[in-house]
């Protein structure tokens, strides 16, 4: 989850998010180079006397056409690589259905026996000591770590969005439509997210909590819940 006054990304917990963070750093470095150039040109212009002597500017026209093209290529190539990488769906080990309601999520694991549950936010009055306000839920989404997980997201009433920033996942939940996304968690842990599409009065109070555990713990949990 994010710390107070956090401005940057959360630590990446999936390979896609690692790539996104790297691309973001790369884009910022290109932005720094461009800002340095613009600041320098601005300083030059401020020191220059105003004149209208220029009639022919072939060289500068060439420079300010080619340089932006190079900048666009430097940004577009890694961006497209990640975009196509995000669309790759390996054979998933588990399919999870996330259904958005006003104002809670329902999760269905239909690969096993009929395993499904609702996930409501824990009210602040019932929050155990040391837990996170407005982020904890009564039933977490438990998944096995280092396994490709497919999530099918939909909604029951209005638009919602299933988002977990540290996994690099955000998928709209649209009534009457099934949207698919997939991810792999690289390490065990608990990853928090919040509904990311305005859906009414309690839009800020329907969080998502994904718990990534080793496979044997996941099997114990699923057999416990099924019984």
């Amino acid at each position, binding site marked *: 989850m994010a710390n107070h006054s956090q401005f*940057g990304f959360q630590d990446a917990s999936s390979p896609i998010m690692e790539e996104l963070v*790297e691309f973001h*750093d*790369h884009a*910022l*470095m*290109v*932005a*720094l*180079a461009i*800002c*340095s*150039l613009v600041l*320098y040109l601005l300083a030059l212009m401020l020191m220059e006397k105003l004149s209208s002597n220029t009639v022919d500017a072939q060289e500068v026209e060439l420079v300010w056409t080619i340089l932006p093209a190079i900048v666009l290529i430097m940004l577009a190539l890694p961006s497209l690589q990640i975009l196509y990488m995000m669309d790759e769906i390996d054979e998933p080990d588990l399919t999870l259905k996330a259904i958005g309601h006003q104002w809670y999520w329902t999760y269905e694991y239909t690969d096993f026996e009929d395993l499904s549950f609702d996930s409501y936010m824990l009210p602040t009055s019932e929050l155990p000591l040391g837990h996170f306000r407005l982020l904890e839920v009564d039933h977490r989404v438990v998944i096995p770590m280092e396994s490709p997980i497919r999530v099918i997201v939909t909604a029951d009433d209005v638009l919602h969005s299933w988002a977990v920033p540290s996994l690099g996942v955000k998928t709209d939940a649209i009534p009457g439509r099934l949207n698919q996304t997939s991810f792999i968690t690289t390490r065990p842990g608990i990853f928090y997210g919040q509904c990311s599409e305005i859906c009414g009065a309690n839009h800020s109070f329907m969080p998502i909590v994904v718990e990534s555990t080793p496979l044997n713990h996941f099997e114990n949990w699923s057999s416990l819940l099924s019984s």
Partner: protein
Amino acid sequence: QSFKLLGFLDVQSVPCARESVLYGSLGSLVVGLGHFLATSRVRRSCDFAVGGFISTMLGYWFYCRYNLAQKRIRQRMLKEGMKNRMLFEGSYLDPERKQTGDERSDS
């Protein structure tokens, strides 16, 4: 505490950023000063200094990030290899066991 260059680039937490900016500054100094010593033209030397800063910074950035990406790939392969070694040790898939088995059959 983080130090953000121009208010947005956190040079301490972004890998390769600090070295890129420092090498860029050094490159800018070398190119700008060198051009001034050669031509005694202040204005043009400043232009070369800025150009030198941008090209050295971006040049080192690409080089460093490429090496970092290769290291990460090798790290992932190593991690996978260690996991597989622990998983297959003693089984018929263990490559070390296969080797000793062949030696025995030869003798």
